[in-house]
Structure formats: structure tokens, C-alpha cells
């Protein structure tokens, strides 16, 4: 029991509870002193903020900074020696590999949680009529499904980046290890706040939180805003750290154009998330203040303009979809050459296409607003900029196909997920242009077609590559490989079930089913399709369950592998598995091109022998 309470996580959560209560009491007391009556909403918001801060202080992420501010000596992060063992994963650690795994845990927990929400409201939708949820519960569930999974995606990306990037570029750790730990631990109270929205009244708006509904609806939206705001800052600080790491910490000889392609993808992603994320934070903050202080930004009743919210919101949330997929597309480009035993086709073009997508991604947000009543002259420019994104995305597809072309393909589980990702992302890419074209989108907007579209993009661009990455890099974490049998079962169940789900969604969307609707008219003739979608959804969940079981079993009993399991050229596979404490016992140097698979006598990295006695 004492051991349990010594875990950082437990201490942090207790501090968060205390801080929240104290913050609520404090605000109530201040208001009482000013002669104002008790009001729950401001007290909750203030308590939530204080609770998040006390979590971070209680768990100890700020202790070193505090000492630095007071001019006390603090050890260099590289010289901190942490006692190995499981407890390290439940408290503050500065090791990027531990932080990567911590992000991974959190991401899997939120994945399961968000998926469960979907199963609940899908069950409701299997039949017309309201069966067991009321409208508010249904709306809360769809909103939570969206945002909890977005949080999960951000954390999953952080997990991959944290674990792999320093290993891949030959660094000992991230550029700012303390900031790295801080970013991760921010995400925990953020997630707690986000989920707590369900328990303090829920909200009606879906994940996009459009005002004026979000200004007027129940209070849960405040916790939703606060949670997203904090998770958003976690993402900002994490990606700032990644940019600095990728630009400054590469091994000697690793020029930008000799960097593994995944590092390029993460660089592009991080540029988006350090900058654009501020805008969703700002827009949510403005709605919070509108509710708390009556500031008239968005509610027309007080002179505001709801369209402004949509501009600010989508200025983040469109680029955000590229935050979600660029790392995954990077994983695809990273793994294909390994499993095709051929150089990555058009390395430079692929590297620059990530940048191209990131930059054009900033110019297209208006395609979410074609029907919003925004200035009409903006429609066509946004349509063209949207279709322009197809160019850099197309480059990636051509490179993938050309890399596989005449390769000696092998098909272990990671490769299956890579190929699944390519196929599913292709579906997402093909269904995008009809929604990006004004004339067709006027019909498609806010229907289930859009739901089908973006599930294809997110699964193809994130979920499948994430699974590929976990199967691929699992031995680097544990020293064991994951079960191929369960992995293949996972894949062959997930792919068809998922395609059935999204084709069903697009079909009912074209037949006129609107999204975010708890009930539908049986006369519309899509009840059967809705049932299929629900069944497919459960199958997807079941396949993920197989995956979780695989993780559990393989981590304890999987086949032991120490060396270069996939015969990769990348630096992280030149060291033993699991990766040792400070990564590279001897520094490495880059002496060739990263993806020259199959070319005789080509080398990518070599170790620099230290002169003896140095």
C-alpha cells in the first residue's frame, strides 16, 4: 500500500483532487467576500486550473526548475541516474524512452476509452428511435468520442516520436528532457479534465464546440475546453522540443537530407503543432470567457460573430488532421524500404512533400465552412487550395508504389499494417476532393459521408501506421517480438471490418443521413446499413482487443530478439534491444544514404571508436 502511494502518478492525482477542491473553495470564498453568491461554473473552472497545476507540482515536474530559478545547482539531465524498474514508468522520468512508453500507455488507455464511447452510441444507432440514451447523453458521447481520440492520437504520435526520434538520429536524449517530462505529465491532468466533462453535465456540441450552442449549453463544455487547452499545451511544448531535437541533436554526418524520413515527417508535424495549436486554445479560451464573463465574441445576441470562431477553430483543426497523419505517413515511408529491400523512391521529394503538406495545410481551413455563411468570395480560393494538397500527397503515393515495385517483398505483421494503411488512406484521399469541391460539398456537408471520409484518413494515416510501428519497434522496447499469429488475426479482422464500417457510413451519408443525430426515420431505408456499421464497429473493437492481448502476452512471454530483427539500416537497430539506458555506448557517425537497401557495400552509420583512455 505504501508502495502504491509512492508512485508519482498516484501522488499527482491526489494532489489534483486536493488542488481542485481548494481552488473551488478559494474562488467561492473570494466571491463570498465580495458579496457575490455561490456559482458552480466559475468555481469548477478555477478549481480545474488549480488542480492541473497542483498535479504537476505534486508529482515533481517543476522541482528542478524551481531550484534553477533559485540559483541552486541542478544536475545535467544526462547525468541523472534513475533506478531501473517498473516504478520508473509511473513517476517523473527524464529518459525519452520511458516518456515514450508513458505516452504510449496513455494513448492506449484513451484509445480504449474513446472506442468504448463509440460502441455505446453505435448501439443506440443500430435501430431507429431512441433506445437507451437521451439526447444529451448521445451528444456528449459523440463529442467525447471525437476529442478523447484526438487526444489519443496526439499522445500516440508523441509516443512514437519520443521513443524513436532520438534513437534514430543518434542522440542520447531529447533537447530538453525536463520539458519533455513536463509535457507528458501535463497531458495526464488534461485528460482527466477532458473526461470529467461527462460527469459535470456533458455537452451538446460535438467535438467542434461551435458557439452559440457551446455558449449556452450545459457546463460540461467548460471541462472539455479546459482539458483540450491543457492537452494542447502539452502538444505544443512536446513538438517545440522535437523541433529543437531534430535540428540540433543529430549525429555527425547526418545532414538534413540524410536523416531518416520519419524524422522529416515529425519535423513537419511539429512545425504545425507548435504554431497552429495556439489557435484552438485561443478560440476555446474565448468561449470560456464568454460563458464566464459575458464577453461577446461569438454570440450574436451580444454582438459577436460565430463565424469568427469557426475560422480560428479550423485554422488549427484542419492543419491538425495533418498533424495526425504526417507521422503515420512517415512510418509508412520508413518501413516500406525495409520490407521491400529497395531504396526509398525519391527520398528528397518525399522529405519535402511532408513540408509541402504542412505548409499548404495552413491555407485550406475554409473548406470546413462552405455552408457556414462565411464570405462567399472565399469559397473558390479555399476549394483550389484544398485540391492543391493532393499534389504533395500524391508524391507520397507514387513513392510508395515505386518503392514496392519489383521489390523483394516480405509480409510480416508490420508490413501488413503498412499496406493496409496505404489502401485505407487512399480511400480517404479519394473521398476528400468531393468534399473539397464546393458544389458537391454543399450536399455532403454534415452527413455521414464526411464521417466515412475522415475515418478513412485517420485510420489510413494514423491507426494502421501506429499499429505497424508498435509491431515493428516493440522489440526495441521490450527485447521481445509480438506474436505474429495474433498480429495477423488483428490485421485480417480489422481491415475488412473497418472498410465495411466506412463504406456503410459513406453510403448512408449519400442517402441523406445527417451526422450527430441520435435518431432517424426508418422510412429513409438505411436501418440495415446502420446495423451493419454497428456490427463492423464491434468487430473493429474486437480486433483491437486482440491487439491489447497480444501486447500483454508478448511483453511477458514473447520470443526474445536482441539484434537487428528486420535487417534495418537505421541507427536504432544497430544497438541491442531493449535499447540501453543512454542509447549509444559509443557515438555514431553517418557515412552514407539512409535507404540504400540492396545496394552492395553501402553503409549508413558506423560507430566512432573512442581513442583509448580518453
Amino acid at each position, binding site marked *: 500500500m505504501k508502495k502504491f502511494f509512492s508512485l508519482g502518478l498516484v501522488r499527482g492525482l491526489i494532489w489534483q483532487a486536493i488542488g481542485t477542491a481548494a481552488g473551488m473553495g478559494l474562488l467561492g470564498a473570494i466571491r463570498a467576500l465580495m458579496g457575490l453568491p455561490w456559482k458552480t461554473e466559475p468555481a469548477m473552472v478555477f478549481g480545474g486550473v488549480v488542480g492541473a497545476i497542483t498535479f504537476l507540482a505534486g508529482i515533481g515536474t517543476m522541482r528542478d526548475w524551481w531550484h*534553477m*530559478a*533559485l*540559483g541552486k545547482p541542478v544536475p545535467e539531465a544526462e547525468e541523472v541516474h534513475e533506478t531501473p524498474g517498473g516504478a520508473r514508468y509511473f513517476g517523473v522520468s527524464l529518459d525519452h524512452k520511458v516518456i515514450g512508453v508513458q505516452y504510449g500507455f496513455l494513448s492506449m488507455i484513451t484509445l480504449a476509452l474513446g472506442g468504448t464511447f463509440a460502441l455505446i452510441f453505435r448501439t443506440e444507432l443500430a435501430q431507429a428511435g431512441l433506445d437507451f440514451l437521451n439526447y444529451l447523453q448521445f451528444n456528449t458521447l459523440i463529442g467525447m468520442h471525437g476529442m478523447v481520440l484526438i487526444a489519443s492520437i496526439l499522445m500516440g504520435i508523441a509516443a512514437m516520436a519520443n521513443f524513436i526520434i532520438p534513437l534514430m538520429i543518434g542522440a542520447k536524449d531529447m*533537447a*530538453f528532457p525536463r*520539458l519533455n517530462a513536463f509535457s507528458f505529465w501535463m497531458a495526464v491532468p488534461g485528460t482527466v479534465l477532458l473526461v470529467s466533462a461527462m460527469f459535470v453535465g456533458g455537452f451538446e456540441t460535438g467535438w467542434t464546440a461551435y458557439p452559440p450552442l457551446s455558449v449556452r449549453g450545459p457546463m460540461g463544455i467548460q471541462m472539455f475546453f479546459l482539458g483540450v487547452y491543457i492537452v494542447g499545451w502539452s502538444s*505544443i511544448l512536446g513538438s*517545440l*522540443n522535437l*523541433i*529543437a531535437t531534430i*535540428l*540540433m*541533436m543529430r549525429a555527425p554526418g547526418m545532414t538534413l537530407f540524410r536523416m531518416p524520413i520519419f524524422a522529416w515527417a515529425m519535423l513537419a508535424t511539429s512545425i504545425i503543432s*507548435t*504554431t*497552429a*495549436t*495556439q*489557435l484552438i*486554445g*485561443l*478560440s476555446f479560451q*474565448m468561449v470560456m*470567457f*464568454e460563458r464566464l*464573463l*459575458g*464577453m*461577446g*465574441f461569438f454570440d450574436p445576441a*451580444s*454582438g*459577436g*460573430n460565430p463565424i*469568427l470562431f469557426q*475560422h*480560428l477553430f479550423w*485554422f488549427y483543426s484542419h492543419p491538425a488532421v495533418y498533424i495526425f497523419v504526417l507521422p503515420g505517413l512517415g512510418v509508412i515511408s520508413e518501413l516500406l524500404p525495409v520490407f521491400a529491400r529497395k531504396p526509398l523512391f525519391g527520398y528528397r521529394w518525399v522529405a519535402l512533400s511532408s513540408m509541402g503538406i504542412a505548409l499548404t495545410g495552413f491555407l485550406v481551413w475554409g473548406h470546413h465552412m462552405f455552408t457556414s455563411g462565411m464570405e462567399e468570395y472565399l469559397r473558390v480560393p479555399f476549394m483550389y487550395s484544398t485540391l492543391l494538397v493532393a499534389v504533395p500527397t500524391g508524391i507520397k503515393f507514387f513513392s510508395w508504389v515505386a518503392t514496392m515495385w519489383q521489390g523483394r517483398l516480405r509480409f510480416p505483421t508490420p508490413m501488413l499494417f503498412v499496406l493496409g494503411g496505404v489502401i485505407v488512406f487512399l480511400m480517404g484521399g479519394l473521398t476528400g476532393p468531393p468534399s473539397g469541391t464546393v458544389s458537391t460539398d454543399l450536399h455532403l456537408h454534415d452527413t455521414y459521408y464526411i464521417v466515412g471520409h475522415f475515418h478513412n484518413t485517420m485510420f489510413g494515416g494514423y491507426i494502421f501506421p501506429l499499429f505497424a510501428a508498435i509491431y515493428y519497434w516493440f522489440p526495441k522496447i521490450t527485447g521481445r517480438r509480438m506474436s505474429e499469429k495474433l498480429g495477423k488475426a488483428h490485421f485480417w479482422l480489422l481491415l475488412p471490418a473497418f472498410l465495411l464500417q466506412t463504406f456503410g457510413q459513406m453510403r448512408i451519408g449519400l442517402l441523406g443521413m445527417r451526422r450527430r443525430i441520435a435518431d432517424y426515420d426508418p422510412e429513409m431505408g438505411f436501418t440495415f446499413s446502420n446495423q451493419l456499421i454497428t456490427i463492423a464497429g464491434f468487430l473493429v473493437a474486437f480486433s483491437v482487443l486482440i491487439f491489447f492481448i497480444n501486447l500483454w502476452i508478448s511483453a511477458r512471454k514473447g520470443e526474445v530478439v536482441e539484434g537487428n530483427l528486420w535487417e534495418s539500416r537505421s541507427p536504432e537497430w544497430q544497438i541491442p534491444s531493449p535499447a540501453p539506458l543512454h542509447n549509444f555506448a559509443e557515438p555514431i557517425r553517418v557515412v552514407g544514404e539512409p535507404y540504400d537497401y540492396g545496394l552492395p557495400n553501402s553503409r549508413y552509420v558506423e560507430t566512432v571508436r573512442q*581513442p583509448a583512455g*580518453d
Partner: protein
Amino acid sequence: MSTHTAVLTAKEAARKMTTRRLGLWLFFLSDGFVFGGLLVTRFYLLGQARPHLEQFLGLIVTAVLLVSSFFMNRAEVSIAHNDRKSFVRNTVITMLLGIVFLVGVVGFEWQLAPFGPADGTEGAVFYMMTGMHAFHVLTGVIFLGFILRNGMRGHYSAENHWAVEAAANYWHFVDLVWIFFYPALYLIGTVGG
């Protein structure tokens, strides 16, 4: 052999310094998007109208912040040349000017403005912009408090004063934001109604 390692560590130290600076600038870039978003909000909601504010007070607080930046720079130059006394003096002046700015905005402008935060878009925009900026000034003053304390205890020298550089740069960044907020709030457009 030993010179070889010395060269290596000097290179390593330079890399560390650049990494820190890059981190700080990335933070500015990121934070700049908040203020950019607020400028967009101001022009989207108010257009060519500008809030009804005390023109003269605006000029005074702007001048105060500008002068504070001057002393901030002087403080940083001083410590970079091992002049601790002048560092302390100039940091104190900067902090005082920062506090005067805060009093000017929050203590006077907020009280004199003919509208509150809940009074339409004008109030919303004005209080959000000045509030967000004032919050940054406040944190800047706090950072200065820390480097002042450590500076008086002799923790900084020409070779070792990254904290001073960071706090000074943050201060200039906050000034930079006001360079755009001042015309957006006080000068551009015409006072409506």
C-alpha cells in the same frame, strides 16, 4: 589530447547554447500565434471601428514599455560585460517601468474605459487583448524578479548568464507584441458611436 577535448567541449557548449536559444524562439513563435489570433479577432469583430480609449494614456504606457526595453537591453549588456552593479540598477528600473505599465493599463485604462468586458464586442476585444498582454507583462516582471535576486547574489557573470538573456528576450518579446497592439487598439480606424 587535452586541448582536443577542450575544443570538443567548447563546441558542445556552443551547441547547447544554440539549442536553448532555438527553444526560446520557438516558444515566441508559438506564443506569437496567440497574439496574431487576437489581432485577427479585433479586425474581424470591430473592422474599421476602434474602441473608445484614452488616447494620451495609450501613448504614455507605450512610451513606458519602450523605455523599459531600453533599460532591459542595458542590463543584459552590463552583465555580459561583468558589470554587476549596472546590471542590478537597470533590471530594477525595467521592473519598475513594467509595473508602471501594468498600473497604467489595468489600474487606469480599465477603469476609465466607458465599457466593461461584457459590453459587446468592443469590450470583449479590448479586455481580451490588453488582459492577455498584461498577463505576459506580469510573468515578465516575475522572471525579472528571479534574475534580480540571483544577480544580487552574484550568480551571473559574462560567461554565464543564460537566464538573464532569456528573461531579457522574453521582455522584448512582450514589448514586440505591444508594438502591434498599440496601433491596432489606439490608432487604426475611427472611433464609432
